[in-house]
């Protein structure tokens, strides 16, 4: 597979009606064929996880601002966060705001912060639900959600809003590490069964600023983050389609989560970037699903 530019990949996805441009980068719509593949991949994840007896929860794509403030997200990624503001003024202020809007002048001064922020990851609403003492086997929660990242880009795999299928494991350190290792193997097998040349690698998050360089170095050294990558645009810079984060006792301390024997619980999460997996499939097998290899079609459309 030869490399492709971000623009060419974008244009090919648009030409085949897989994505629908809306003007703002990273906010495109999805066509029915794209959605069919995405949903079927999600079903394969469910099938692989069937024996795990996870608790399923569904949250809206917004979270309590207090949970967000408590989670240290702003400390690590102020540049990616999406805080929701709204209008709560009177008639006169409304008229002033609308004058600004019509004259294309700044109108942010008429907006004030609400109690909610856009979910930056699907797992954030889960941790407050785990507060208290876990059962002997710990807990496992399975969620899917739209998440927001403020990183507008013409590169199709870098979106401002996308879906993550995420699972969170809480328990004793070895329970959590074993679960993470088991899913790393399982995730790789699943992606390879779909003909994707998936590989694991040690990774770090895009932490902000100089302090962030230190956080990223710590994360790498302690091997706290793994990603499964697939070449989408380029072989030299493959795209992460799945990420595994081991938080150690970070959320256990913040949200007072204890193991059955009274220790601070450890947590880890894993997330499949559903749009990215879908784009990787179109990039590797071609833009027309009818022409995909028979063994891949058999897995997705049994």
């Amino acid at each position, binding site marked *: 597979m030869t490399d492709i530019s971000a623009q060419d990949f974008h244009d090919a996805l648009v030409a085949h009606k897989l994505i629908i441009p809306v003007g703002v980068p990273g906010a495109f719509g999805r066509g029915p064929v794209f959605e069919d593949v995405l949903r079927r991949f999600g079903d394969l994840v469910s099938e692989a996880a069937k024996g795990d007896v996870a608790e399923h929860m569904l949250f809206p794509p917004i979270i309590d601002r207090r949970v967000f403030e408590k989670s240290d997200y702003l400390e*690590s990624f102020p540049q990616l966060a999406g805080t929701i503001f709204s209008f709560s003024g009177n008639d006169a202020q409304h008229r002033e705001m609308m004058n600004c809007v019509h004259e294309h002048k700044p109108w942010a001064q008429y907006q004030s912060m609400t109690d909610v922020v856009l979910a930056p990851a699907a797992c954030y609403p889960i941790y407050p639900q785990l507060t208290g003492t876990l059962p002997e086997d710990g807990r496992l929660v399975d969620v899917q959600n739209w998440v927001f990242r403020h990183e507008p880009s013409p590169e199709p795999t870098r979106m401002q809003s996308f879906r993550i299928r995420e699972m969170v494991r809480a328990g004793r350190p070895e329970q959590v590490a074993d679960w993470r290792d088991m899913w790393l193997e399982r995730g790789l097998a699943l992606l390879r069964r779909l003909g994707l040349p998936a590989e694991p690698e040690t990774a770090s998050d895009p932490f902000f600023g100089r*302090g962030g360089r230190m*956080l990223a*170095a*710590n*994360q790498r050294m302690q091997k706290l983050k793994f990603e499964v990558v697939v070449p989408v645009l380029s072989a030299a810079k493959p795209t992460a389609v799945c990420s595994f984060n081991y938080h150690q006792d970070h959320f256990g301390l913040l949200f007072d989560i204890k193991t059955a024997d009274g220790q601070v619980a450890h947590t880890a999460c894993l997330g499949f970037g559903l749009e990215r997996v879908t784009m990787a499939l179109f990039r590797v097998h071609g833009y027309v699903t009818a022409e995909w290899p028979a063994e891949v079609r058999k897995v997705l459309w049994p």
Partner: protein
Amino acid sequence: MIENIRNILKEHARLSADISTLSDTSDLYQAGMTSHASVNVMLALEASFDVEFPDRMLKRTVFQSVSAIREAVEELTAGK
């Protein structure tokens, strides 16, 4: 210098133990300093000693103990 470093740790490292009970070689991460807290320690050291940690020094081991921090600060202030 040790006194100054210990004061900064007391204020920014969010240790679970009292800093005065730790030796110069005690592991600060073991004593409860989180990654985020170590960033605040790093920034406070820069302000206090008027130095800037280069990228190669922005790593865990440099902030592991009082003596490791002293060594790093001495290296940075050596040319001053």
